[in-house]
C-alpha cells in the first residue's frame, strides 16, 4: 500500500515536471521574446539598469571575457589538437601587435528554435571575430570565423557582423581579409542563414575592384560558403587542414556513387602562408635597390635552339628587386607565370609565358589564370609587365570542345581593356594570335621591347613553309629563307610594333625608367555600364 502511494506521488511529480517543461516551451512556439529578462532583478527595483547583482561594467567585463574564449576551453583544446589555431590567435598572428580593434563583440545570434535561445547556447560575438587592424602599418579589415562556436557555422548575426566590416572597408577603401573556418550554414536558423550568405555575396560583388579582398581557407569550407572565397580576388588555403568544395564526400557518394576523400575533393590547390608578403608587395616600398643594375646573365639565358626550353622564372627573378617574386598560383596552369614583384620599389604585376611547361603555349587554364590576374592589376592600378615567349594557342579537340576560343578571348579582353602602364618584352617566340593577345602594341601596350632573340611571326618556320611553298621541292631552302625574313625581331620593329630591340642585360634598367615615366599615365575607356567580357 505504502509502495503504491509512493509510486503515485512520484508519477505526480513526473506530471508536474512535464508541465513545467511545457510551459517552458510555450514562448518558443509562439515566437514571443524569450530569454533575456529574467524577472528577479526587476523585483528588487534598483536603478542600476542591470540585472541580477551585476553592474553594467561588470556585465560588460563578463561578456568580454566570455567572448575571448569563444566556445570554451575544451573546444579550443580540440581545435589545437587538430593542428589549427583559434580565430583570435589567427587574428593576433596576422595583424601588427596591439593593432586589432574589434567590433561587435556583443552580438549574439537571434535564433530561438531548437533550444538555441538558452543561455548556454549564446556566445557573445557569435561564431565570428570581426574588426580592423594593421599589417606592416597598412589598414585592413578582418573577419575570422570561430570554429569553437557552433563549428563556425554562419548565423544571421554572424553574416551581419561580416557585412558591417565589409561596408566599412568599402567606405574607407581598405582591403578585407576573411579567415574562413566554418562548417557551413547554421541549420537551426534556416533561411536566415542563407540570407546571410547572400548578403555577404552581394558585398563581395560590390566590393570587387573597389577594395582588394582576400580569403584564407583555414578549415573546412563547404556548400554555399565557398562562393564568398570564389568571389574574392585571392584565395589561400592551408595545406592538409583545409578543404574547399560544394558538396562533401558523403553527398557525392549518395548522388554519383563516387568514393572520394575530402583531400581529393577539395584539398589545397595553392599553398601560401605568405599573406604578409602579399601586403608588403602591394604597397610600394622605399627600397635601396639598384635601378640601373645591369643583368649580364640575361644575355645568355635564351638558348640558341628555339626548340630548347628555359625557365621564365630565371628571367623574372633576375630583373625584379632583390629577386623577390611572389608567384600566384604556382601549381596551376604552369605554362603561364603570374605574380607580384617590385621594380625600384614600385609594385608591378608580372605575366610571363613559361617555355619550360608545354612550351609556354596558351591553353584554357593559362588564359583564364592570366586574364584574372591582369584584371586584378588593372583594377588596383598595378602596372603590368609581360614577358612573351609564346608559340601560340594549344591546338586539339580537348581545347576546342572546352572552349579555348571563349577562354582565350578573356585574356585578350583583359589586356585590351587594361589602362594601367603596360610594358611588354618579347624574349623569343611571339607567334600568331597569341602574339596579339600578349599585351601587344596593338592592345595599347605602352612600351614594347624585343630581345634580339625575338621571333615575331604568324607561325614557326616549318609550318609556314609547308603552307606557303606547298608542293614545292627544296623545302629546306624555303625554310631558311623564311627564318631569315621572319624569325627575328625586324619585321615587327620596322613597322613600329616593337619600340626597340634591346640588349637583354639592359632590360631592368629600361623597365625601371619607363615605369617612372608611366607613373602619370592617364587613360580612360569609353563610359559604359560595364563591359561584356566573354565569361
Amino acid at each position, binding site marked *: 500500500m505504502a509502495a503504491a502511494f509512493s509510486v503515485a506521488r512520484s508519477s505526480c511529480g513526473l506530471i508536474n515536471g512535464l508541465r513545467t517543461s511545457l510551459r517552458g516551451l510555450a514562448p518558443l512556439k509562439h515566437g514571443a521574446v524569450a530569454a533575456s529578462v529574467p524577472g528577479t532583478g526587476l523585483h528588487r527595483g534598483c536603478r542600476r539598469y542591470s540585472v541580477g547583482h551585476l553592474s553594467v561594467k561588470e556585465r560588460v567585463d563578463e561578456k568580454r571575457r566570455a567572448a575571448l574564449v569563444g566556445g570554451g576551453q575544451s573546444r579550443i583544446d580540440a581545435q*589545437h589538437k587538430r*593542428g*589549427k*589555431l583559434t580565430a583570435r*590567435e589567427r587574428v*593576433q*598572428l*596576422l*595583424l*601588427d*601587435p*596591439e*593593432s586589432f580593434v574589434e567590433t561587435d563583440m556583443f552580438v549574439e545570434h537571434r535564433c530561438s528554435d531548437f533550444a538555441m535561445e538558452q543561455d548556454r547556447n549564446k556566445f557573445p560575438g557569435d561564431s565570428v571575430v570581426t574588426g580592423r587592424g*594593421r*599589417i*606592416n*602599418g*597598412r*589598414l585592413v579589415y578582418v573577419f575570422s570565423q570561430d570554429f569553437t562556436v557552433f563549428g563556425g557555422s554562419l548565423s544571421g548575426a554572424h553574416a551581419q557582423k561580416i557585412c558591417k566590416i565589409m561596408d566599412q572597408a568599402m567606405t574607407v577603401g581598405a582591403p578585407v581579409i576573411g579567415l574562413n573556418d566554418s562548417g557551413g550554414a547554421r541549420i537551426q536558423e534556416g533561411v536566415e542563414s542563407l540570407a546571410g550568405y547572400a548578403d555577404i555575396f552581394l558585398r563581395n560583388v560590390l566590393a570587387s575592384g573597389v577594395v582588394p579582398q582576400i580569403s584564407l581557407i583555414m578549415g573546412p569550407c563547404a556548400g554555399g560558403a565557398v562562393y564568398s572565397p570564389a568571389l574574392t580576388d585571392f584565395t589561400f588555403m592551408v595545406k*592538409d587542414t583545409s578543404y574547399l568544395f560544394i558538396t562533401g564526400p558523403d553527398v557525392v557518394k549518395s548522388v554519383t556513387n563516387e568514393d572520394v576523400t575530402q583531400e581529393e575533393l577539395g584539398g589545397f590547390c595553392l599553398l601560401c*602562408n*605568405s599573406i*604578409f*608578403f602579399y601586403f*608588403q608587395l602591394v*604597397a*610600394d*616600398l*622605399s*627600397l*635601396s*635597390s*639598384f635601378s640601373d643594375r645591369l643583368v*649580364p*646573365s*640575361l*644575355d*645568355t*639565358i635564351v638558348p*640558341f635552339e628555339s626548340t630548347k626550353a628555359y625557365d621564365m622564372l*630565371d628571367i623574372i*627573378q*633576375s630583373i625584379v*628587386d*632583390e*629577386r*623577390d617574386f611572389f608567384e600566384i598560383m604556382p601549381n596551376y596552369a604552369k605554362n603561364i607565370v603570374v605574380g607580384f614583384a617590385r621594380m625600384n*620599389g*614600385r609594385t608591378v604585376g608580372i605575366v610571363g609565358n613559361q617555355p619550360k611547361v608545354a612550351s609556354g603555349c596558351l591553353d584554357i587554364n593559362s588564359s583564364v589564370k592570366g586574364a584574372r590576374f591582369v584584371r586584378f592589376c588593372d583594377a588596383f592600378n598595378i602596372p603590368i609587365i609581360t614577358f612573351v615567349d609564346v608559340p601560340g594557342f594549344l591546338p586539339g579537340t580537348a581545347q576546342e570542345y572546352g572552349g579555348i576560343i571563349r577562354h582565350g578571348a578573356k585574356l585578350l579582353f583583359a589586356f585590351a581593356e587594361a589602362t594601367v602602364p603596360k610594358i611588354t618584352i618579347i624574349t623569343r617566340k611571339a607567334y600568331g594570335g597569341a602574339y596579339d593577345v600578349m599585351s601587344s602594341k596593338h592592345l595599347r601596350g605602352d612600351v614594347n621591347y624585343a630581345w634580339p632573340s625575338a621571333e615575331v611571326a604568324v607561325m614557326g618556320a616549318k609550318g609556314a613553309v609547308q603552307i606557303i611553298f606547298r608542293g614545292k621541292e627544296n623545302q629546306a631552302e624555303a625554310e631558311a629563307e623564311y627564318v631569315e625574313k621572319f624569325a627575328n625581331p625586324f619585321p615587327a620593329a620596322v613597322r613600329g610594333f616593337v619600340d626597340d630591340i634591346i640588349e637583354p642585360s639592359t632590360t631592368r634598367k629600361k623597365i625601371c625608367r619607363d615605369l617612372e615615366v608611366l607613373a602619370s599615365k592617364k587613360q580612360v575607356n569609353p563610359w559604359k555600364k560595364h563591359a561584356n567580357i566573354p565569361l
Partner: protein
Amino acid sequence: MAAHGLPPSLSRLLFAVKYGSLQSRCCALHSKAQYSTVHNPGEKTFDKILIANRGEIACRVRLLDTLINFEHMNSHTCKKMGIQTVAVHSDVDSSAVHAKMADEAVCVGPAPTSKSYLNMDAIMDAIRATGAQAVHPGYGFLSENKEFAKRLAAEGVAFIGPDTHAIQAMGDKIESKLIAKAAKVNTIPGFDGVVETVEEAVKIAQEIGYPVMIKASAGGGGKGMRISWNDEETREGFRFSSQEAASSFGDDRLLIEKYIDNPRHIEIQVLADKHGNALWLNERECSIQRRNQKVVEEAPSTFLDPETRRLMGEQAVQLAKAVQYSSAGTVEFLVDSKKNFYFLEMNTRLQVEHPITECITGLDLVEQMIRVAKGYQLHHKQEDIPINGWAIESRVYDPYKSFGLPSIGRLSQYQEPLNLSNVRVDSGIQEGSDISIYYDPMISKLVTYGATRAEALAKMEDALDNYVIRGVTHNIPLLREIITHPRFISGDISTNFLPEVYPDGFKGHQLEADKRRELLASAAALYITAQLRSQKVLGGLRVSSAPVECNHWELCVELGDGRHAMEVTKSGDVFTVEVDGGTVEVSGQWNLASPLLPLTINGSHRMLQVTTHTHTHFQLRVLSKLAAELNSYMPEKVPEDTSSILRSPMPGTIVAVSVKPGDTVAAGQEICVIEAMKMQNSLTAVKQAKVKSVHCKPGETVGEGDLLVELE
C-alpha cells in the same frame, strides 16, 4: 614591431655565415711573385694558336683580362705574347666565355665531348680553316692523346706539349712504370700488365696483398680508379673500373698495384725543352682529395725538406730525360710518412693546379710551353728556380649533397672575390653560365698567395667568404672548413684527410656556442631590419602608420632542431641581442639587395651571405615570440618514407639495373648504376626487401628525383 610570424621573404632564407675577417690584408704583393721572365717581344713564336679545350683552361691559355688581378701576374699568356687565338666549342658552349673571348671561334660539334672536344676530324678542319700554326690542348680531352699529336705533326702544326713518343710512353700506366723503373725512379710494388678477367684480378690482388688499387691503364684524374680491401671489392672494382675506363678513355685495360695507406700525394712540376734541358719547378702538395679528385692544393709542401725535394726533383728530371720529354709535365709521387716516395704516374700536360707553381716560381708555364714548342731553349738554370712565398689553390666546384654526387644548374648570381689583393681566380664562366651535365663541374680555381703559409691561408678564408655563387650548389663551405681545420693548418694531412675528418661526409660547419649566438643574433638583426623596412612606404600612408617607434623585440629563432628565445634592443644602427645567456652586439649598414652583407659582431668584422639555398648553410627561422608559442600547435610534417623507394639523386643515365621485380635484395646490395658527370655511382638498397617495381632501364636518361625502383 610586427609580431605576425615570419615574412616569407626572410623565413625561407638561409643564412650562410662565414666567420671570416673582413680586414683586407693589403700587404703589397711579394715583389718576387711576378713572373721572373719578362716576355721578350723579339722572340717570335706563333701568329695563331688554336686552343682545343673549353672552360677555365681555355681562358687561361688565351686572354682574360677581367679574371685575373695578380697585379703583375697576368695569366692571359697568348695576349701578352701577341698571339691570336682560336677557340673551339660545342654547340651548347657557343656563348661560353672561352668562345666569346677568343679572336675566332669555331663550332666543332654537338654537346657530347666525343662529338665535339674529342672530335679530331672537326678540330683538324678548324685548324685548316683558321690557319692556326699550333695547338694548345689544355688538360683533359686531347691533351694526352698521341693520335691527335700524330695527326697534327702530319699536317705540320705544332703541338704545344711533349712529343708523341713521350705521350705514348707515359700515357700508358704500365709502360710508364717500366720506364720509370729503368730510369731508377722509385716505384710501387704491383702488377705490371694488363688484367684480363675478374678472377685474374683477384689472384693478383692476393699475391700483392691487400689493400690494392685497381685503375685504368689509360686513365687519369681519378676516373676508373678503385681501392679494394678484399676479394669481393676487387671483383666489384674490376667491373666498375673497366666500365668507366671504357666510357672515359675508350680503353678498358686495368692494372693492379699495392695501395699505400695514409700516403701524401706530392707532385713535381718539370719543364723541359727540345734540346735536352730539363728543370724541376718544385713540388705541389695535392693530398686533399675526394675520390682521388684533388680539392685543395698548395705549393710548396709543408712536409718536404730540401733534401727530399731535391731527390724527388732529380728523379723527376731523370724520368723526363729518359723519354726525351719536352714542354711542361708533372711527375706524381706518393710519399709515405717516412718520406719514402714512389712514382705514381707522369702527366704529359699542363696540370689543373699549375697556377700555384707559377705563383711561387714566377714562371708563366703556358708561355714556356709555347716557347718550347717553337723550339727555343729554356732560359733558366735549375738554381734559378726559387720558392717565393706560399700559394694555395681551392677547386671551387659543384658537388652534390654532402660529399656525394655532382649537380648541375645555372649560375643565377656570380661574383668572384677579385676585390681582394693577392687573389687569382681562373674561371671560364660568368653570371648566367650553365654548369652543364656534359662537362667537368668545376666552377673555378681560386688561388691565393702570401709571403707565408699563414698569410696565404688567411687570404683564402677571406676570398671564400667573399665569393658569391647562386643557382648551383658549391663546395665553398667544405673548402672553408678544410683550410681552417687544425690538422690542415698544422700540415698533418694525407690523401685520407677527407675520409678521416668527415667519415660520414661533410655535414656543414658545426657551430660552437659563441658562434651560434653570433649567427642567431645576426639573423635577428637582419629580420628586424627587413621588418622595419617593410613598414616604410613610398610617399607615406594615408592613415598615419606605426603606433610608436618600436625598439624592443622578443623573438624566437629556430636553428636546426633548437629554439632560441632572444630579446633584441636597437639603438641607432646597433642591435643588442640577448640570446642563450650571452649578449651579442650586431651592427652594419645593409643594402638588403646585395648578396654580401658585411656586419660587425662584437667588434669584429664578419661577412654574411643570405642565400636561398639549402645546401650546407644554416637554416634559420625567425619568429615573433607569439608565433613561436602558437607554432607548437602546428602538426609536424611527416617526411616520406624513403627507405622503400629509390629516387635518382641527380640527372644522368642509367648504366645498369641489377634487379627485377620480385627479387629480394639485401641491405647494401647494388640496385642500379647511374652515370652522371662521367662518374658511375652505384645506388644500393637501404634495407632488405623485395623489389616491387622497376621504373628505369639501362640507357635511359633520368632527371633528379625520378623514381627508379620501388621496394616492398
